[in-house]
Every structure is written in structure tokens, then in C-alpha cells.
């Protein structure tokens, strides 16, 4: 705080409670006025859709009965639907493998650019971040071409069928890693930049090498940024949608119409007009993501500082 204003000399009782800052009513009215646009949007595009999805999910629509209240029938169906189960399991496996790989890569890159302050490290920082600027649709298209046997260079190096059912999940994981590792690297790097440098100096005097400093001192000190980056990655992977949808036409056999819960909900709504069932899947997915991220934050609350 650079500017400290002198208090008006008129206040006589210095020992009493601090003088009321300003007419409370005016402040409250302004406060409400200022948050109104946001609150209206919050209601219209978050709370209302949430409530509507929940309501829809409690109804069923059949030719004989029309739309009727069915309580949790859609949810029972979703829990028993092997296609839902398969999709949920797939995004969980995907998240368990891809998240540590990407956060690990981002951490490694962040520690490297924090350690080596050369011109090359600045260029590298840009190179790693640029994929974030690319729309997911285009990033996925590019990798689709690169994976292809006809147009891509990868099959010459690795004789794999990248889009076959055994490799496609890993190929999708690579697209996500490529797109987001640099973004997370910058977040972690920013956290590293905020650390006090003196700590490294004393560690160095105690004989710690750069690797030890990076792993034993820097990494634990940025754990709150690591937790947040991990959280947002988990939020993203559970909602996995664009990448499988774009790669789907290249191999419809390995990327199915129910590949992820989001893809399934989308197809239920737009290919089959099953809005109620689709809403149930969406709501279920939303609940899982919400509870999952809440539990994650709770489990790491000492580190996340949220």
C-alpha cells in the first residue's frame, strides 16, 4: 500500500469503534447493484439448467404414456446401463493415467525453466504454451492427421495403429497432454517464481544438488499450485468430449457413440431425442465431478490452501 491517506482531523473520539466508513445503506445498495448482472447469469445459466436437468431426469417419455413422472427410473437405468458403466470406467482410467503423466511433465518442464534461465528456456516456455492457444477441435484434427498412416509421420517411427481400439485411448491422452501440459507448466512456473530464493542458497551450502533442490524443496513448496492444477485436470478429463467426437469418424469401431459419458449424453439427446435419459446421465456426471473434486480438495486441504 503506497498511498496512506491521512485521516480527516474531524474525528474526535479516537478510542471508540472505527467511524462508519460510509452510509451503510448506499454501500449495500451499490453492492447489490454490482453483483446483480452476475447473479442473474448465475441463475439463468447455471442454477436453472441444473434444476431443469434434474427435473427432466425424473421424467420419462414414452409413446403410450407420454411424458410422465418416473422418479429415479432413469437413474436406475443409467446405473444398470453397461454403456454408461463402460464410459465412466474409461474416463476414470483415462484420468488416472493421463493426469499424473501430464502434471509430471508440466512439473518437470516448470522446474527446468525455473532452473535454467537462458534464452533457450524462454523460447521453450513459449513453445510449450502455444498448444494451449489452439482450439481443441483443431489440435485434435492435427493429431488425427499425424496418427494417420497416409498423412502422418508417426507410423514410420512407431509401427502402431494409433486409432485401433487398443491404442486409441493412449492416442487421445497424448492429444490432451500436448494441449494442456504447457498451460500447467506456466501455472507451476509462476508458483515457483513466487518462492523465496534464499532457501535454495542455504540448501546449496548444505550440499544439495539442483535435482535435490528441485525435488525436495521446490516441489513441496508449490504443492498448492500442484493440487489446483491436478483438480482442474480431473474436472476436464471427466468431461472428456471434443477429442473423442473429432477422432470418431476416423475409426468409428474404436471410438463408439458411448465412448465417454458426455459423448453418450450428447448422442442420446441429439441422435435419439432421449432428453430425459440424457439429462439423467448429464446430472449424474455433474454430481460425480462435483463430489469428486470436493473430496479431492478435502483430502488435500492442508496443501491447497483453499
Amino acid at each position, binding site marked *: 500500500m503506497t498511498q*496512506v*491517506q491521512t485521516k480527516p482531523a474531524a474525528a474526535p473520539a479516537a478510542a471508540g469503534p472505527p467511524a462508519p*466508513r*460510509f452510509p451503510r445503506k448506499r*454501500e*449495500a*445498495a*451499490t*453492492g*447489490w447493484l*454490482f*453483483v446483480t*448482472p*452476475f447473479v442473474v*447469469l448465475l441463475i439463468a*445459466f*447455471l442454477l*436453472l439448467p*441444473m434444476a*431443469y*436437468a434434474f427435473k427432466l431426469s425424473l421424467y420419462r417419455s414414452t409413446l403410450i404414456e407420454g411424458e410422465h413422472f418416473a422418479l429415479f427410473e432413469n437413474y436406475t437405468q443409467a446405473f444398470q446401463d453397461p454403456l454408461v458403466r463402460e464410459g465412466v470406467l474409461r474416463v476414470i482410467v483415462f484420468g488416472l493415467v493421463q493426469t499424473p503423466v501430464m502434471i509430471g*511433465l508440466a512439473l518437470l*518442464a516448470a522446474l*527446468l*525453466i525455473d*532452473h535454467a*534461465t537462458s534464452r533457450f*528456456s524462454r523460447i*521453450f516456455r*513459449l*513453445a510449450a*504454451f*502455444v*498448444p494451449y*492457444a*489452439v*482450439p*481443441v*477441435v*483443431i489440435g485434435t*484434427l*492435427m*493429431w488425427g*492427421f499425424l496418427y494417420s498412416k*497416409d*498423412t*502422418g*509421420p508417426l507410423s514410420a517411427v512407431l509401427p502402431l495403429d494409433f486409432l485401433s481400439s487398443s491404442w486409441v485411448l493412449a492416442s487421445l491422452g497424448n492429444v490432451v497432454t500436448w494441449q494442456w501440459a504447457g498451460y500447467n507448466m*506456466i501455472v507451476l512456473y*509462476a508458483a515457483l517464481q*513466487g518462492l523465496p530464493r534464499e532457501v535454495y542458497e542455504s540448501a546449496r551450502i548444505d550440499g544439495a544438488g*539442483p535435482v535435490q533442490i528441485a525435488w525436495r524443496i521446490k516441489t513441496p513448496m508449490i504443492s498448492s*499450485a500442484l493440487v489446483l492444477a491436478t483438480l482442474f485436470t480431473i474436472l476436464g478429463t471427466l*468431461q472428456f468430449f471434443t477429442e473423442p467426437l473429432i477422432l470418431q469418424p476416423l475409426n468409428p469401431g474404436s471410438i463408439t457413440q458411448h465412448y465417454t459419458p458426455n459423448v453418450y449424453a450428447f448422442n442420446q*439427446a441429439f441422435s435419439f431425442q432421449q*432428453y430425459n435419459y440424457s*439429462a439423467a446421465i448429464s*446430472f449424474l456426471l*455433474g454430481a460425480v465431478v462435483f463430489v469428486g473434486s470436493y473430496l479431492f480438495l478435502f483430502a488435500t486441504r492442508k496443501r491447497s490452501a*483453499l
Partner: protein
Amino acid sequence: MTAKKERAGVVPHVVMGVLAIYFLLPFWWLLVAATKDNDGLFLSAPLWFSDFHLTDNLTTVFSQENGIYLVWLRNSALYAVVSGIGATAVSALAGYAFAKLRFPGRTKIFALLLGLIMVPATALVLPTYLLMSKAGLVDSVWAVILPSLLNPFGVYLLRVYTHESVPDEMLEAARIDGAGELRVFTSVALPAMRPALVTVLLFSMVASWNNFFLPLVMLSDDHLFPLTVGLRTWYMSATLGNGGEALFNVIVTGALVAIVPLIVAFLLLQRYWRGGLTIGAVK
């Protein structure tokens, strides 16, 4: 940057070099591929130039279907600018109010907001579509712009930033000088909030420019599509081969044209986005 530090940096530089190739390879491929015709794309070496057809490709991209690509480009820009500015304005007002104004319900709404940041946006796209279609707003620019104005994370960032970097004394002084609340906000708080405002603006513009799921669901008139949805329709008709030639070279060149503005903007605005991420990371 002592000599000792430089020497220690050989292994790190090799690792960074390998990673840089990984991150840049797709761009190199795209650049090379955009210079090839459709046959060249399939028959020549993927990572090196063969016959040069970039100008032909660009001409086709911009003339295909009566120049619809340009319409998509304009739509993307429109959605990004309007949503970006709108979302930033809404977040600035709310963030400032949460940080600096006392009003009943403030803590409750803010706690609610923190919880709602966790609600997955994509799970809301389908119900939002159904609500919008009831309101008769589907298949209009508003169907894409209005939901994009909501940015809970932006509000959160601006609240944190304002709380720490806009001194109460400054606001008080302006009030004592007789400034109204709106004036205090516009001429005292806003200038002090600038770094965080630029960040929220940049990131919400990028999010809108890159958005796919929302416009995909909301729009069926291809003259309202943003680039992401438009390119996908070309790509779908090329891969599924329903009618017409499969013009992969046009898609590749279209993709290149679509990412150039963003990459240029990112390079130019480097210090802003980097500074901005610091706001998010350090608390």
C-alpha cells in the same frame, strides 16, 4: 546467471529440446501440409515440402461454399470479442463488490460461487440448450454469447486481486471527495484492477474463440457457426465422403489460418498472460 549455473544446464537443455520438438511438431506438420495439394498430402513425405500449393489452398479455403470460411472467421471474432468484454465487465463489477463493498448476503453468495466453480460446464450444455429452445433463443448469436458471459472463476480471480491490491484508503478518499459509488469504481478501482482485468479478458476471449461444445449444440444455421464448428463440418463430410471431393488440403489450410491469429496474439501479449497466471497461482 553465473557461469556455474550455465554449465549445470546442459542436461536440462537437452530435455527441453526434446520436449520442444514434441510441442512444435504438429505445427511444423501443419505448416508443411498447408502447402500441398490433396494428393501431395497423401503421397509426399509428411514432414517436408513438395510442390508448393499454399496460394491455391488459401484461395480455395476462402472461396469454398461462397466464402463461408470468412463468415466463420468473423463469427469466431464476434463471439470472442463480445463474450470476452461482457464476461470481463460482469466479473469486474461482481469481483469488486465481493472484495470491497459490504452488503447483506455477500459471504453467502460468494461461498455459493466457490462451490459452483466446481460444477462442470459441459454437463450444463444440454439442459441450457433445452431451456434456450423453450425461450426461442436457439440458433441465434445470443445462444452462444449469453452463456459465455458467466465466468465464476473470473469473478473469483478479480475478487482475490482487488482485495489485495486496491487499498480501502483510496476508495475512502474518493468518497470523501464526494465521488459517487459508480465513480469510485470506474476512476479509482478499475485502473488499479487493470492487470487482473486484462487476464480475465484474455482468458475469456480464448475460451470463446476455442469453444466448440456450446455452439455445436446451440447452432444449426451454418452461417452462425464459429470456425471450430465450421471446420468440423468440412472434416466430417471429407472423412465420411458423402458427396463431393474429400478436400483434406482445404481443411488443413483452414486449420492453419484459424490458429495464426491466436498464436500471434499470444506472442504479442506474452507478458499479460504470464502475469495473469501468476495471479491465479500465487495466493
